[in-house]
């Protein structure tokens, strides 16, 4: 088995090198037809959310193309399972995941670029295309966008706050009058949550990486403890448990929704995934961009893109390319995926449909329009833990510089070790 995988890889390498400008490899064998035919089968891996809806459209695709399509569900740790399985030749042909996996998947040679034509690219939201572009290549077909915004209980607060200061003031007033118990719900938990704090942090001037000359995040330049970032951490401290109390480590993923739907808080920083519960509880709400500090930078949420990837060691690669580049990029599939999991579609035509059907979609997109595509470089994975620790430390009232320095040291150490 292993032997065969190597042969297939050599075959692909030879055909790729035939294209290479420097043609010094004439002595290499020409493309050997792989023994591993796909057997007319396309295997797709997805997480729990997406399996059911994909199944229906995958079956349709199978019928049109005379193949059987299997959709497999990996409940936990999809990215790691995919990379490991792929390496051993047990992986799928197509995998569905978040765009920030790309850096890691590429360095492991687990996915192939998807060659979208210029005309196909123009069908997608520009931010989505940018997010799936890595090292100059498009590595996946985007299908949904996600970002967080400020969800507000309009019965408690009719107008959106213009700044974080306004928000805190409105929250404090409500708390004093006993109407709510929390000023703001921004999940943090005992380990911190860089994703949910980032907009406020960025408004305070904080950043994670410097930029390379090409404008990409630079893993060799971690800016978590730059002067600007320390200033941002100081602002978080002021909002924290020893300050105004808007940010608390006790507010965590498992209690934010319940607290908001019980009307114990008027402001909730969250994404479209929690709207269903809010609707079910009958809360009147509005979605607006997360406000920044008065006179500060705009609050920039992370922009996440869900995408389809073509596995480079799949057994039906042409079919996988066809599915990803030419099938899931069509409107009906995008609409169906939206219906199953209401995150704004990446395909512009489907986005228009969704906007008409649900006014919230436009609001989410508006809140994310200046968002920062989540860095897809592998080094981004080193940020979460140490940054979260620093966040917790300052929210509890710790010294911002000490916390930021400790985080930067941990991040830099980790990045340096892994070169």
């Amino acid at each position, binding site marked *: 088995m292993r032997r065969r995988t190597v042969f297939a890889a050599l075959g692909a390498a030879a055909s790729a090198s035939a*294209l290479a400008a420097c043609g010094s490899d004439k002595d*290499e064998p020409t493309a050997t037809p792989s023994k591993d035919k796909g057997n007319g089968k396309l295997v797709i891996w997805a997480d729990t959310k997406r399996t059911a809806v994909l199944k229906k459209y995958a079956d349709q695709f199978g019928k049109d193309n005379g193949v059987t399509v299997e959709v497999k569900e990996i409940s936990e740790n999809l990215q790691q399972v995919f990379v490991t399985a792929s390496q051993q030749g047990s992986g799928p042909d197509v995998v569905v995941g978040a765009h920030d996996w790309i850096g890691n998947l590429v360095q492991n040679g687990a996915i192939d670029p998807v*060659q979208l034509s210029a005309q196909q690219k123009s069908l997608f939201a520009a931010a989505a295309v940018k997010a799936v572009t890595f*090292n100059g290549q498009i590595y996946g077909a985007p299908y949904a966008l996600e970002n967080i915004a400020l969800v507000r209980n309009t019965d408690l607060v009719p107008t959106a706050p213009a700044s974080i200061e306004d928000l805190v003031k409105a929250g404090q007033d409500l708390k004093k009058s006993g109407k709510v118990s929390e000023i703001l719900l921004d999940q943090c938990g005992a380990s911190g949550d860089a994703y949910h704090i980032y907009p406020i942090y960025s408004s305070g001037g904080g950043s994670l990486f410097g930029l390379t000359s090409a404008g990409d995040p630079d893993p060799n330049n971690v800016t978590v403890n730059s002067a600007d970032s320390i200033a941002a951490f100081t602002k978080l401290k002021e909002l924290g448990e020893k300050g105004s109390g808007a940010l608390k480590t006790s507010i965590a993923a498992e209690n934010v929704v319940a607290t908001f739907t019980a009307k114990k808080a008027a402001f909730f920083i969250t994404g479209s995934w929690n709207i269903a519960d809010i609707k079910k509880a009958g809360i009147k709400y509005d979605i607006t961009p997360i406000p920044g500090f008065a006179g500060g930078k705009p609050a920039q949420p992370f922009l996440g893109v869900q995408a389809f990837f073509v596995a480079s060691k799949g057994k039906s690669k042409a079919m996988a390319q066809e599915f990803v580049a*030419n099938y899931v990029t069509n409107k009906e599939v995008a609409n169906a995926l939206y219906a199953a999991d209401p995150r704004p579609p990446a395909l512009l035509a489907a986005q228009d449909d969704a906007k008409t059907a649900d006014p919230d979609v436009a609001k989410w997109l508006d809140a994310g329009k200046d968002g920062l595509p989540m860095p897809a470089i592998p080094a981004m994975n080193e940020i979460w833990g140490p940054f979260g620790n620093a966040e917790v430390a300052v929210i509890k009232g710790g010294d911002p510089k000490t916390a930021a320095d400790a985080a930067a040291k941990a991040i830099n150490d980790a990045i340096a070790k892994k070169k």
Partner: protein
Amino acid sequence: MTTPSTTSSGSGGVTGAGGSGSPRSGLPGQRGSDAPKRGTGKSAPPSEHRPREITVGFLVGRLIALGLVAALLLFGLPPLIRTDNWIGVGVLVAAGAGIAYLYLTRRHVPLKYLLPGTVFLIVFQLVPVILTVSTAFTNFGDGHRGTKEEAITAIQTGSLEQVTGAASYNLSPALKDGKLVFLLLPVDDKGDPVLDQAKVGTADGLSELPGLTDANLSLTKQLSEVPGYDILSKPDASARGDEIANFAVPTEQGAIKSSGLSKAVELKAVRAYDAACDCVTDTKTGTVYPADEAKGYFVSADGTVLSGGQGWKVGVGWANFTRIFTDKTVSGNFFSVFVWNVVFALLSVLTTFALGLVCALALHSPRMRGTKIYRTILILPYAMPSFAMLLVWRDMFNKDFGLINNLFGWHIDWLGQPTTARLSLILVNLWLGFPYMFLVATGALQAIPKELTEASSIDGATAWQGFKRVTLPLLLVALTPLLISSFAYNFNNFNAIKLVTDGGPYAIDNATVGATDLLISYTYRLAFGGIAQLGFAAAVSVIIFTLVAVMSIIGFRRSRSLEEVYS
């Protein structure tokens, strides 16, 4: 126990088949008092027993043994032969012969009983351990998972960029004289086809395809009818998927390749590997990246790793091990983590054992009523999925929203302070673990002959003295291995830490190691935190294993005198 015994007597025939001769269990020179006794059993004339052993059960037993071997060979061999895997065939045949021999001979009785479980143990426990250990001497991890060939393939595939300004095409794969060709229909910016620029692509290059009209198009604007060409239907095209994916139509700048089965684009390779210099050249910048066989990367002269970061797996000798001891991040925190780790594992075992034993003793009385209900309730914590309950406990400890503070009116930041976080973990682990100890202690209590306990109470010893002198030592004989194994389990209890505290709380000036980190959770973060370093993780596993094993063996030495009572 009806179900088990019915079935097991069936398979028991297998083990029984060869074993039914004279028991050869005792090895010569066996120490202990049982040797002479067994000797008597052995010396009983075998000939007397033999006639009654050739029974139906005896024959059935052998048949089952032979059937098993036959099935193994019959089902196991064909796929191996088909793929020319002769080593596999050899292993399987040898295994079959071994099994046949073992269960047909009268020798090797212990092995007959040990073999079934041992086979599984070796294949599914020992082999993974060996694989892991061998990984420890490599740089295996993200970016270094495959071979150099695979890395080169990935680099070259990833470097195929679309030629700027070139057309993109609607593709119709077709056959001409039995050979694959690409019928290419250029599309404009709106996605509409440009009929008069249609082309035929072969392995030799492009040529014009004149005289097409709308009549040649399908609804999806693909070419569906072209005289002289046999356009492949979608199922036919998918059957030739690999061929289509590998097909390249050479052009001046690069080649036209398919993008799926219905589109094609013109590509050129930006980075190319040259075997002559064992290097990758970026044709855009002209930078040369020679292969660094020590690191498993293509690195340019100025130390930049080739963008994309694809590397390959290379051996690194003892580097992963030396890093554990020389790297300040790792070794600097090692001792404090280790101390807490031992304390955590010890306390987990002691508390669960104490509570489990007390419960077992309390319910171990014929006078006691309601034991069935009590037992069922006590077993509940163990019956709930543990990962779920770990999450539940975490939420109960929440300072503002948690049940514990709310119920008692406290404001304790349980998981936010080192001491309380550690206490909380011990408590959670007690809750999760005591039913296990309760179960095994209950089982073990049954094994203590009543005569012994009764004898001690006749001697006038109090219940407590009786327990201390008779029951506890006997219990410990049976349970010491379990306690040691429980210690080892808790020493590496990754889930409890990961799901409840995730290692935290962290000191403000140290974002690397938290107050409740165990060696396993701490190194998990170091090795997997972002970019997985599986080789390093394997080295750490070896070290952790060595520590646990040494501690366990010491534990055994101390309790061995107990075991000698019975063995």
